[in-house]
């Protein structure tokens, strides 16, 4: 009876009703709260050694303490600056290169094999090299992060500029568009979604590399905070550092998604 009265337009391909915005919120909060309660119980009742797995309250206390003495803000800002600098460096180099390689077949043919060779080398593998080349200073870390973010941005930008639809170029030409107009109104516009996808992938790569770089050679930042906490046997600070990295990444992703929605209004319709 229930299925018979259900509005077909509201069901997805499997015939189930998708969740409303409110229901998704309620379920999301419930799952997080549930896990935190279980966690608190497990450590509070002594099922797990709290030295190895601190309770959420312990982590909360570490949070308050490190906010109070300013170390958390200091470390968050240090990591944030590195990610942003490395990402921007990668972006300003990769986008023009991707445009050139996407538009020029000769340049693309010249660079494609090189890229395929270098691309599989994980950015973490170049950290020792970066330390030798640039020392353990700030630039070294920025460079490693830029290296990690570079390839996703470059490859997506290149794909975007290669995949411009011929029929749309012709449509513009038949309306009197010059080469400049075609580039501005068709090529750039249709490649933009690819560039944005590349930027989002580049940003998540930047985060992975950031932490690795800070774990190995640093005296500030969230990665340093985690590795330093290990020497002090402060698991609560380790968890706090991990949570902050998660929150920072989440925040930057939300920011990029909002930019995407603004620039690509026409996609969602």
């Amino acid at each position: 009876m229930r299925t018979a009265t259900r509005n077909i337009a509201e069901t997805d391909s499997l015939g189930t009703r998708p969740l409303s915005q409110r229901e998704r919120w309620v379920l999301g909060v419930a799952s997080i709260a549930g896990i935190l309660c279980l966690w608190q119980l497990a450590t509070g009742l002594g099922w797990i050694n709290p030295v190895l797995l601190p309770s959420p309250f312990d982590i909360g206390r570490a949070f308050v303490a490190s906010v109070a003495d300013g170390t958390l803000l200091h470390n968050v800002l240090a990591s944030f600056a590195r990610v942003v600098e490395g990402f921007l460096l990668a972006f300003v180099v990769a986008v023009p290169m991707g445009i050139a390689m996407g538009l020029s077949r000769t340049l693309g043919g010249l660079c494609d094999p090189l890229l395929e060779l270098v691309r599989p080398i994980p950015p973490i593998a170049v950290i020792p090299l970066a330390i030798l080349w640039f020392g353990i200073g700030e630039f070294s870390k920025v460079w490693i992060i830029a290296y990690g973010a570079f390839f996703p941005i470059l490859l997506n930008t290149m794909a975007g500029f290669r995949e411009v639809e011929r029929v749309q170029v012709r449509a513009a030409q038949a309306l009197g568009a010059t080469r400049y107009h075609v580039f501005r109104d068709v090529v750039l516009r249709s490649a933009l979604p690819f560039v944005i996808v590349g930027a989002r992938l580049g940003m998540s790569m930047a985060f992975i590399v950031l932490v690795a770089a800070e774990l190995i050679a640093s005296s500030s930042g969230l990665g340093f905070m985690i590795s330093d906490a290990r020497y002090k046997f402060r698991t609560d600070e380790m968890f706090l550092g991990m949570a902050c990295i998660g929150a920072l990444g989440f925040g930057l992703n939300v920011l990029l998604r909002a930019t995407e929605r603004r620039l690509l209004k026409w996609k969602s319709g």
Partner: protein
Amino acid sequence: MASDFVQAKAKTAAISVRSATVRYGPREVLTAVTLDVRAGEFVCLLGPSGCGKTTLLNAIAGFLPLAGGEIAVDRVPVCGPGGDRGMVFQEYALFPWFTVFENVVYGPRLRGASRAEQRRIADHYLALVKLDKYGHCYPNQLSGGQRQRVALARALANQPSILLMDEPFGALDAMTRESLQQELLDLWQADRRTCIFVTHSVGEAAFLAETVVVMKTQPGRIDAVIANTSPRPRDRTSDAYFSMYRKIDAALRDQREPVPQTVAA
């Protein structure tokens, strides 16, 4: 009230194709095609896949270089695409990142139409294709028939002297197709702009064209030119329409005489 962009009387132009040959690599897809289109004429290019009808249209539009021969619009040789030859594509080819309004005024905007002129142009041409309330929409919010109406309005708003159409209604359902064919005819009869319309549908050619150019494959060439004399307004159920349909169909089947009525085994 009077605006150059809206009120100007439609210009029309004659097209002359002289021994036009197009090659894709070593393959000749269009061989020595000669065709004259009068100013204001409605011509259908009809033929099976691979007969070069779209190639001929693209050559007139200036999208393809000729390997031999010449194409001229009002005696001016074609050497590349231009705004004087408007084009409507089967796949609509709207700019999805522009609103319907921005799509329609794209040509005039490039030529420097002011914001107010753009407004007038959009109002005029969107009303013409019965989409006056859709200016703020993005193309992906519209149905196929609506998108093709926008594409038609976009081409007309640029005031081309020739309208080239590449199977514009091929992707639409039968009912939408018939109503768009009627709308197109109404528009053409209002300003008698030169139209070249590519189709593989005999019925479409019989209903729309003044002149039906029948093309053949291997190599792509013109096989017959048929004057469609059935009177307007045309009625798809009239004897005149059916006899023209049979005549075109026979030419397409490479038989000069009408097919005898036989019962298929």
